[in-house]
């Protein structure tokens, strides 16, 4: 299916007219890009080398399932378009011309051109509100952005977004940037069970917990995305944060036709991956890949133990509450007055301790466990870009092979059929250009990945340090409270006579 059929006509100012069209249509409230995604996908369109557009899509989280730590970013479905990685012109921001972002312009150059803004932005996700009833209900979250950066229209913006909006944003960013080697932070997981409970209107602690968990995850997601210097400038991100109305991202619906197609493609891709073996000339990459493999394993193990801890702490909290009640009953039936009072006090202490355990379990979860889960998914992204690089290499090799074949064929033609010679020569020139572009892309992606990993490691170090300190502080608080409670109890116990 030719998607860009909708976008035609392309003229020599191909870019601009598309831009205009998009802007128009956006004003009408319909995003060209999202509109196109509602139709099943594999697509590429290659016309001529200069205007070739290829669309690559990342696969979204598996349509049907719940929390899995496998990042969809690993599987980037690439079209077989001849050219690389230039995304459709329409996706390019009106501010930055095409080649600055996506071709062999060096990163350093780009950074010098950046506005010398200090990174100063804070994004909050709050006030989840249920909108609508029954199975069509959804949760709307308030997104507040505060910043002094000139990139934004105003220093403060507040919008309401729903979960599928976030997924839509992620989809666009992933499509645009993953295949060039940028680490696009993964969006929070879909959860059919969780959402159904909320829709059905169950107002119990587990659905409240689910909403809170999701709210926190969405906040972390936005902050992480905004921290990325390249992603921050993306027009879709800016739109997401600033515009009050956002067209609904349709392709994120679970079990949609698009979803199913994606799953099929994902499977096919997995088979493909296994057969690509790259001769790595750069040990840096090999090393890094191994390290990330190890890190992944360890983080998963840690996450598992943490989950168990959270579970047991919650259990402890429940059992402490039960014991408190029992102790109170015992105090009631005790006929020695002072002892009776002491036992009641004990019951009270245990009740407070129960709350402490509950809070501590919360900290265990929201601080540590969620951080680990985020990083496990991020590592999925990392693996994805590594894979992407391998794919590009593969493409390059294919092109080289083809070029060689054509050259050999040309030599033969030269002897036999001179009229086909011109065609052959044209083809060869085309291929040579393709090979050159392929080499440039490979270099570019390698460079980008290096920069991204450097940034990633820095961020990882900061994140972990920060969270560990916060967690220890929560532990400190728990102990301080414990001391307070038992100190209050001791004189009561001593007063028994």
């Amino acid at each position, binding site marked *: 299916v030719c998607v860009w059929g909708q976008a035609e006509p392309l003229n020599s100012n191909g870019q601009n007219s598309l831009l205009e069209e998009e802007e128009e249509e956006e004003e009408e409230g319909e995003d060209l890009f999202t509109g196109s995604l509602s139709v099943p996908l594999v697509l590429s369109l290659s016309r001529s080398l200069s205007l070739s557009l290829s669309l690559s899509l990342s696969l979204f989280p598996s349509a049907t399932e719940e929390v899995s730590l496998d990042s969809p970013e690993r599987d980037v479905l690439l079209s077989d378009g001849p050219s690389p990685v230039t995304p459709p012109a329409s996706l390019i921001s009106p501010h930055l011309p095409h080649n600055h972002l996506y071709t062999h312009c060096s990163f350093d150059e780009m950074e010098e051109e950046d506005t010398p803004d200090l990174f100063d932005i804070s994004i909050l996700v709050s006030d989840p509100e249920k909108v609508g009833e029954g199975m069509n209900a959804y949760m709307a979250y308030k997104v507040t952005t505060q910043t002094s950066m000139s990139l934004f229209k105003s220093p403060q913006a507040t919008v309401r977004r729903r979960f599928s909006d976030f997924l839509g944003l992620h989809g666009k960013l992933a499509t645009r940037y993953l295949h060039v080697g940028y680490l696009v932070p993964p969006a929070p997981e879909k959860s059919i069970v969780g959402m159904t409970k909320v829709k059905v209107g169950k107002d119990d602690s587990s659905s409240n917990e689910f909403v809170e968990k999701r709210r926190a995850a969405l906040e972390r997601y936005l902050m992480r995305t905004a921290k990325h210097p390249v992603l921050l400038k993306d027009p879709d991100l800016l739109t997401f944060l600033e515009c009050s109305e956002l067209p609904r991202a349709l392709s994120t619906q679970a079990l949609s036709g698009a979803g199913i197609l994606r799953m099929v493609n994902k499977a096919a891709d997995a088979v493909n991956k296994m057969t690509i073996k790259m001769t790595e000339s750069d040990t840096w990459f090999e090393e890094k890949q191994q*390290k990330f493999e*190890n*890190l992944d394993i*360890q*983080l998963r*193990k*840690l996450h598992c*133990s*943490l989950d*168990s*801890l959270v579970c*047991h*702490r919650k*259990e*402890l909290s429940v*059992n*402490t509450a*039960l*014991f408190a*009640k*029992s*102790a109170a*009953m*015992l105090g*009631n*039936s*005790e*006929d*020695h007055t*002072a*002892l009776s009072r*002491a*036992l009641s006090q*004990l019951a009270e202490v245990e009740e407070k301790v129960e709350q402490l355990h509950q809070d501590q379990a919360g900290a265990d979860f929201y601080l540590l466990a969620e951080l680990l889960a985020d990083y496990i998914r991020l590592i999925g992204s990392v693996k994805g870009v590594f894979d992407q690089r391998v794919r590009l290499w593969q493409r390059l090799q294919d092109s080289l092979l083809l070029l060689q074949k054509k050259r050999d064929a040309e030599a033969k033609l030269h002897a036999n059929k001179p009229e086909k010679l011109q065609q052959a020569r044209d083809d060869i020139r085309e291929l040579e250009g393709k090979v050159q572009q392929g080499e440039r892309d490979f270099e570019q992606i390698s460079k980008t990945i290096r920069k991204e990993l450097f940034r990633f*490691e820095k961020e*990882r*170090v900061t994140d*972990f*340090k920060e969270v*560990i*300190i916060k967690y*220890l*502080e929560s*532990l*400190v608080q728990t*102990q*301080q409270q*414990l*001391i307070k409670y*038992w*100190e209050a*109890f*001791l004189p009561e*116990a*001593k007063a*028994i*006579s």
Partner: protein
Amino acid sequence: MFSTLLQEGLDDGPDFLSEEDRGPRAVNVDLQTDATLQVDISDALSERDKVKFTVHTKSTLPNFKQNEFSVVRQHEEFIWLHDSFVENEDYAGYIIPPAPPRPDFDASREKLQKLGEGEGSMTKEEFTKMKQELEAEYLAIFKKTVAMHEVFLCRVAAHPVLKKDLNFHVFLEYNQDLSVRGKNKKEKLEDFFKNVVKSADGVLVAGVKDVDDFFEHEKTFLLEYHNRVKDASLKSDKMIRSHKNAADDINRISSSLYTLGTQDSTDVCKFFLKVSELLEKTRKIEARVAADEDLKLADLLKYYLRESQAAKDLLYRRGRALVDYENANKALDKARSKNKDVLQAETGQQLCCHKFEKISESAKQELVDFKTRRVAAFRKNLVELAELELKHAKGHLQLLQSCLGILKGDT
């Protein structure tokens, strides 16, 4: 593996038994130790299936051959002694100190076995850590069973009447095997039926309203109290078990962090290693907290569960005697009206009356003592519980703050 474990940890003789409190380890009972008769368990050895307690006696009483002596006893012999008290009619008016529970290392043994099987699947450090933990747990259970057996003996030794019991003296002094065999199947069956009859009878007897306010009150009180102590004991056990589970998780997290720290080449590896170390210590503290809660709270409740049952048994015996007395009265009246077998009925009635009054008198004193003991025991344990919780929390806090200081200083 089991036997090496035992040899390693437990041959320390008296050392391992004395921990924080030396001297009569009367955990749940605050007894005045009497110079005329002091009993304690100075040593214990755990073999395959049984535990051998060394019962040590110091006495100035003339009926003992020496002033200080020791014998080796096993659990069954304690039970024999207890049962002989229960079956003795003369002691019907006393609260018989509850028998110590059977030493139960099954759970620990199972865990140890599982550990042995799973040796291949974990790292060497993890294995040694878990082994140490299990050994500590085993030791704790061991100490507890010793304490329970000792408390039983001390209670008997402190009781003005029971301390003079002949069987008790034989138990303390006779340095050969008492040849007390465990009950065989037939006897166990008899026991079972006796219990059934007793509880049915108990219900009957309990239904009889007592003229004496004191006893009526005690009856209602004990019934309710016993049930609530049972409930509290169950819940406290569950709570402590959850606590232990959480401590185990912290152990695993500590190991994971250690691996992460050694693998990581960035700045954050220091953090991981430090926190791993911290969690290692945290786990030890949390395990101690759980163990102390177990000792001061759970054991206290369990003990008073058994004691309140013994008190209920006393009330039952008194109730039974009352019913017998009332029946004897009725029989006497009937005999007098018919003027037949009057003398017989009179003696019968007098016996019952005497028995009933004797029991009532001692029962009153026993129940008052029970309350005193109970209040004292709870006070002691609750105070110690609070002090230990505070001690651990403060230690924990200090650990955390010093770790935080180091980590914050780094960033």
